């Protein structure tokens, strides 16, 4: 059946298309930026959990992404922790951010590192990590076309690749802890320590002991992703995500407001005719809201589709970048786009409903 709402949209295809595009843009912004943030976070959690440690000891006050933490833990603590009841293994790590490579580089003590379930599983080459040797994971090797025996530059220093390990072992590039300390100029300091509890020990008891022993440090419970997330300090991350959502909703809101505002003035006469036909204010408001809902739905669907394409492009072109978009995220994008657009249409709809019918009818 002929419908005034769709007829209105079709009568101004360019404006409708631009409105749809703008709403789509808002949704894309929300989904892609939000997706990268939560993808990175999931990635961090996943990798942190990948080693299979029960606790992570960090200097007090340090936050998420150990890359940015100082090397301020005394390595000698390793010995103290090892002696604690219920502790099965400890491994110190000095991490650094490698700007032009694949994010983090771990300086590890391979012998103690491999006592953890997420140990380096060598797929190719020989498991050796001393001096100027480096082990990289399969993803890094594939992306950078690296083979054992080749020399690569990490942190402005040349290393010889000894082995390729299975991906998912916390980070992608491993060098010896001793070498890292020299490069970093911190002889006795490390960034974090992974701790594995004795399988027979009670985790809560071990946790209490650790907190008791190291009151000035933060101890993350890495055995449970929810605990880890709760204890990981994410400065401003939640606020940042809110801001992105707000900005994208504002974008849809303003575009719909403007589009509908111009629409109702352009259709002043038609609104007068509707009133002469006895259309109630509710009918007129409903018509304008319906039009914006239609535009916003199309925009949100387009936005979701484009976001999905962007996600696929990102994860194939930049394998280390993580974009997480769940069905829930997509639904949220759809709903928020619709809500923003509907809110934007409210004021123009109100203006239309309040128009003087006689003036509207004589409008040229």
């Amino acid at each position: 059946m002929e419908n005034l709402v769709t007829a209105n949209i079709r009568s101004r295809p360019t404006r409708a298309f631009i409105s749809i595009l703008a709403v789509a843009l808002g949704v894309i912004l929300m989904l892609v930026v939000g997706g990268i943030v939560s993808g990175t976070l999931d990635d961090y959690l996943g990798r942190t959990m990948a080693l299979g440690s029960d606790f992570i000891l960090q200097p007090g006050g340090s936050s998420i992404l150990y890359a940015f933490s100082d090397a301020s833990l005394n390595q000698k603590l390793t010995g103290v922790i090892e002696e604690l009841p219920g502790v099965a293994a400890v491994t110190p790590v000095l991490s650094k951010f490698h700007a032009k490579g694949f994010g983090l580089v771990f300086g590890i003590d391979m012998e103690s590192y491999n006592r953890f379930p997420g140990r380096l599983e060598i797929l190719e080459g020989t498991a050796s990590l001393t001096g100027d040797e480096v082990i990289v994971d399969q993803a890094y090797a594939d992306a950078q076309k690296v083979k054992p025996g080749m020399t690569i530059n990490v942190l402005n220093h040349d290393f010889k690749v000894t082995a390729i390990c299975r991906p998912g072992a916390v980070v992608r590039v491993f060098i010896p802890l001793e070498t890292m300390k020299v490069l970093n100029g911190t002889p006795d300091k490390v960034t974090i320590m992974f701790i594995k509890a004795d399988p027979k020990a009670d985790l809560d008891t071990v946790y209490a002991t650790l907190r008791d022993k190291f009151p000035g440090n933060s101890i993350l419970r890495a055995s449970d992703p929810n605990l880890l997330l709760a204890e990981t300090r994410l400065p401003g991350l939640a606020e940042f995500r809110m801001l992105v959502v707000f900005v994208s909703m504002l974008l849809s809101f303003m575009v719909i407001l403007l589009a509908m505002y111009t629409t109702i003035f352009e259709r002043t006469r038609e609104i007068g005719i509707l009133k002469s036909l006895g259309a109630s204010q509710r009918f007129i408001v409903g018509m304008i809201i319906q039009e914006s809902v239609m535009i916003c739905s199309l925009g949100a669907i387009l936005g979701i589709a484009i976001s999905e394409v962007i996600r696929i492009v990102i994860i194939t072109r930049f394998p280390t970048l993580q974009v997480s978009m769940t069905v829930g995220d997509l639904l949220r994008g759809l709903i928020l786009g619709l809500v923003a657009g509907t809110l934007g249409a409210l004021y123009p709809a109100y203006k239309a409903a309040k128009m003087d019918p006689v003036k509207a009818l004589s409008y040229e």
Partner: protein
Amino acid sequence: MGAMGEMKDGASAANAIETVDLEMTYRSGRVDVPAVQGVNLTVRHGEFIAIMGPSGCGKSTLLHLLGGLLQPTAGSILIDGTDISKLSDAERTAVRRRKIGYVFQRFNLFPTLTAKGNIELAKKIHGNGVSNPNGVGSIFEMLGLKGKFNFRPSELSGGEQQRVAIARAVINRPAIILADEPTGSLDSRNSRTVLRMLRDLNKKLGQTIVMITHDSEAASTANRVVEMKDGRILTPTCGYSYEPELERVN
């Protein structure tokens, strides 16, 4: 008059329209424009009246008042027994929706909708899905619009557009049709067609019609002519004793 004001269903009201000391003064800036002054007009059910008068004498204003598009500054308007001057904006709109069909000089069809779409829209606004005794088809046939269902206003002649507008006005079987110079934009041949159709609606369906016109030939189509000047009615309406039944015999 008080009793009539309370009457909800117009079926039993004696008159389709009755105005009592109706006044409308426009306030534009500091100047007051008295457009309608002390109008007492009575239109019986089934009557077809024409309003004539010089430009600016308040004809359109009166028609807007009768349809509840304007709120009078004084006096009352009984539409099918309901005093709409005492109603809220929403209530007046509801009365207009149920009881009034407007026809304008400029047709006022929705340009984006087809002829059928325009009619469907009026039905939708009327709402509550009550089936019409006269479907779109029979109204279209009666108005000589067969085969024009899917034409847009821009694809129709002026006469056809006005006939679609008339179809839209009558589709919900309103008690009253208010037509403001319905032939004002039409050539004489199309004017005659439109007038004949209005008269058919009046005669065959007993449709009450109030029509403004500048053309005395058009006015002669009506049962009665009301002259207006300077916001007042000149012709004494009480002088006529009019019986629609008698008219039908002729």
